[in-house]
């Protein structure tokens, strides 16, 4: 489980740029949580603070009871992170890349080989497992990135726009994998701007705009709250006003303008 409490990250002179401002939400085990927001909303910064790549200005991130600021190494053992598909080693095979990452988590020998093979099987990569990744399609590279995140069998998985730029078949496979991770009892947190994807996959959604969480709830709750029948419309309804308010970084909402957060 991942608990994010009052997370803040400000940049610039006099902390004028509020990239993430007082963000709080919980991602339970066995559920898929979506972090939704327009470009520049603070999704990636929030994910990077959860991973410990960026030190929070304030607030805490607790992963399975461990504070990421105090025990970053132990927290990373508990996390699998799927970053952008461009970070693939072109001259290594998928199997080699999984081995490489597996060693970072203390996997060795037979145990490492078993996990690598399990990931290859799980992601249906048998036909490309021993080919150098040079020239792989985006979907194939995305599988490598996902496999690297899963090789140490983490209980929590973070994904940054996992279906971005993929074709229909690859999107479907990725979504199946995310569903499978939920069934395995993992806590899955992913960021996306695809509303249909969030509606289909997510048990919980946190909508972030201008560094603020403007709503948290299940897709049904968010639609009910806004009186909309589609999540996309609910999102626009919830985020639209906030987006206009916060899209200019550093501006402060006038009193009473901020929308209430679901669940408050």
């Amino acid at each position, binding site marked *: 489980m991942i608990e994010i409490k009052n997370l803040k990250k400000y940049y610039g002179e006099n902390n004028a740029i509020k990239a993430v401002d007082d963000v709080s939400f919980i991602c339970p085990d066995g559920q898929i949580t979506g972090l939704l927001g327009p470009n520049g909303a603070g999704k990636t910064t929030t994910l*990077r603070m959860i*991973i410990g*790549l960026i030190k929070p200005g304030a607030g805490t991130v607790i992963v399975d009871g461990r504070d990421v600021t105090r025990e970053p*190494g*132990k927290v*990373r*053992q*508990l*996390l699998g*992170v799927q*970053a*952008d598909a*461009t*970070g*693939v*080693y*072109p*001259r*290594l095979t998928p199997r*080699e890349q999984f081995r*490489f*990452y597996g*060693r*970072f*988590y*203390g*996997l060795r020998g037979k*145990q490492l080989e078993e*996990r690598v093979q399990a990931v290859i099987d799980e992601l249906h990569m048998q036909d490309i497992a021993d080919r*150098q990744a040079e020239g792989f399609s985006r979907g194939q590279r995305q599988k490598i*990135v996902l496999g*690297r*995140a899963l090789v*140490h*069998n*983490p*209980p929590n998985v*973070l994904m940054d726009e996992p279906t971005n730029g993929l074709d229909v078949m690859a999107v479907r496979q990725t979504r199946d994998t995310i569903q499978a991770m939920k069934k*395995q*009892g*993992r806590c899955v947190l992913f960021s996306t701007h695809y509303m249909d994807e969030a509606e289909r996959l997510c048990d919980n959604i946190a909508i972030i705009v201008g560094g603020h969480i403007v709503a948290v709830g299940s897709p049904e709750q968010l639609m009910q709250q806004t009186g909309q029948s589609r999540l996309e419309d609910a999102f626009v309804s919830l985020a639209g006003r906030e987006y206009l308010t916060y899209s200019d970084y550093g501006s402060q909402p006038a009193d009473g303008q901020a929308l209430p957060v679901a669940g408050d």
Partner: protein
Amino acid sequence: MNETIVARQPGRWQLRWAVARQEMVNIARHPYYLVSFGIPIFMSLAFALFVSALGETDELIVAVYDAGSSDWAATLAKWEDVTVRMVESETAVHTALDDEATAGILIPAGFDTAVAAGQSPELVVYVNQEARNDHIAIVTRRLSDALWTMGEAPPPAMISWQETNARDSGLTFSVEEYIVVIFVILGICMTTMGILAQIIVEKRETGSLPALLASPLTFGDLLWGQSTAVFLYTMLLSAILLALNGGLVGNVGVTAVSIILTTCALLALGLWFGLWSQSKNQCNAYTGVMGIVLVIPSWFALVPPENLSLPLTVGLRLLPTTYLVELLNQSLNGTATWTTAGINLLVLGMFTAVFFGLVRWRLQRQPVW
């Protein structure tokens, strides 16, 4: 979850070694990096072919004047890879040395009898200072072995080493040593710094850094692993270049430590340029220019120090490779001891420490991305 969590937290050195292994595979499969390592070896082989085409012989010749028909002289004639020429006089020995012989041996009359009587007779051995270092080393070793076959204690004979054809006083190098220095410095300067800087920049350019740092690996571990991989390749390259050019002679220990220290200094420069550069092109430009600057001391290796202008001398002293040239000079011609090489090794060590200090400062000031 159905499966238990199998991972346990690895140690720092395990993480660094994992990176080093991956980078070694990465370098071995990268055409550009392979070519970078291959060029000095190719040039070295091409030069050897060029020299042989010019007619320089590889024959190792030893001229022997046996004044008393010694039986021991017959054992010398059985040496493999060495052409032993029996001559008729001491003068003929000197003539052979002036010509192309590596060494000349004078076996006195009654040598066998004196050895048998345990009198340790004197054996005069002339060494041609213009001969190749590896040839001199071979003769020295073979002669020592041949003597000890005659008995153990007391020493069968006392060898009196005499140097002939001493090099011009102004020159501190033989041409063979010069070639070793040129290729070793070229190999280290054109590969170590540039390749390390490039594989650092590559991680940023390809976007693989966030995924790596989301694991228990720290940025420091990553740099350690990358440096280790390049260090090991540089050591392999240096060993090949030394072996190909007859550089495994003299004080090999001083040669090895000098190369290790210089490699470490250049790794620090590679880290600096890798952290500084935003793209591979920028990185290539910086490290290319710096590589040429660092090779410069080897150009002046054959020039007597007193013939260099003061500004040039001072400028060269600011380059770590100047000290490597001097150390290789001493170690290859066999005059280096840990005491005589100590100051230059210390200076090289200081360069390395300063460069790593700068990298540390840079790391503290610069965010990872």
